[in-house]
């Protein structure tokens, strides 16, 4: 099993979610994070005091999938999250040793 993690632009979440549903991935966890790569942040001004804020709001997506699906899921996310503009984000995978569904106690691939 693999954990697929993606950091994407917030307004793309809906597109990614739909694309994953179409692919067959029905559950995911989402968090609001702040991030930056080579993308600039922005400046804020309050009564003459200028602040440079480097971070840009992003959304982080986490979903555990089977080894077989991992590469495809990454593809689906990349295609649906891309805008071509700087700041589109990144996707990565890490191996998962153990997975349990809390409600039923199912373990391993049964818990996907």
């Amino acid at each position, binding site marked *: 099993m693999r954990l697929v993690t993606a950091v994407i632009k917030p*307004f793309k979440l*809906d597109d990614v979610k739909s694309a994953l549903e179409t692919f067959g991935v029905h559950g995911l966890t989402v968090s609001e*994070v*702040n991030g930056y790569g080579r993308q600039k*942040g*922005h*400046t*804020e*001004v*309050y009564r003459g*005091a*200028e*602040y*440079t*804020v*480097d*971070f840009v709001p992003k959304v982080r997506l986490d979903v555990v999938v089977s080894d077989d699906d991992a590469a495809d899921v990454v593809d689906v996310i990349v295609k649906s999250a891309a805008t071509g503009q700087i700041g589109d984000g990144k996707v990565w995978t890490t191996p998962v040793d153990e997975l349990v569904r809390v409600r039923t106690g199912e373990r391993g691939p049964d818990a996907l």
Partner: protein
Amino acid sequence: MHFDSGDTAWVLGSAALVLFMTPGLALFYGGMVRSKNVLAMMVQNLGTIAVVSVVWALVSYSLAFGPDAGGGFIGSLRLAGLAHPNAPVPGLHLTVPPLAFCAFQMMFAVITAALLTGTGADRMRFHGFLLFAAIWSIVVYAPIAHWVFSPEGWLYKRGVLDFAGGNVVEIDSGASALALAFVLGRRRGWPRDVMAPHSLPLTVVGAGILWFGWFGFNAGSALAAGTLSSQAFVSTQLAACTGLLGWLVVEKWRTGHATTLGAASGAVAGLVAITPACGFVNSMAAMLIGLLGGITGVLAVSVKFRFRYDDSLDVVGVHGACGVVGTLLVGVLAQQGAGGHLFAQQALAVVVTMAWAFGLTYVVAQLVERTVGLRVSPEIEIEGLDTAIHAESAYDFGNVRAGRIGG
């Protein structure tokens, strides 16, 4: 001239109440937009107060209430720059100083223009909208105010009854909003994407301020403190209440839920409907008008989805539609003169106001869009107006920002 200090105090106080409605509108609308655009909405309203008040003093007061320049169509520029501040307002026999009347009417011009920020929510450029508001208040608002509010105006002379601005404010802004919605186009992702209110508590506070200020708007339009203003006051309150209840009942029946936004909107819808009528009908009629306003409003806000125009915060639906209902009902329910003839004059006023407001607003909006620009770029619309245009964020709940002063 003899001035009554009680009347004068009431009119000046009412002017302040009406002014307060615009910051109230900023809260009402601000809560309804997404958090990335709340400051832009609010500062557009603040900026509108500034721009329209200045333009009023310079030119539009004279165009609206100055001596008629011909045919009851527009006032002359004799009172431009608030010249002759002590000269009686043409056609009016006031017991308050002319400047008090001028101040009171100034606030009406301000809020009518401010209402248009609701149509263009989430996608208007700041300086573009302020320029638009300045021109609009001269070519759209002032003429209609002259026709209906000034005794020298041609609709006034035909016997059209508009106590506090059903035509001049509500239908005017409603029809103008429709034109503005067409020129601006739909928001990116509308209507599919979730664009839910980010802070309904702000909206409710704003609704409360609007309700409070409306007593100045309606009862102040009696331009005196006495029986008439008392009737207008009571009618205003009753209509707000039946509007609220009417909206909630229909909403519960249609969607299964009575919502906070519905309650706030219903009160406003009732207030809009009673605005042209409050000094002309009795209290029971006011309850009926408010109720019909609330019911009209809750149904009217769905129309934009059917015709796919993005009147973001329902200026057409709440102010336009309910304003029409209230104005026409005056023809039916007025204590003096109700009947076919009055109804026909009311209908004429509705049609003429809608046509002028829609047509001229379309032209002015196109003019601004093609010169300095009225709609923001897609990038700014996605990022959010607050950071992109105003370099500010509304909320900082201790979130990660990791910035520093300077560059």
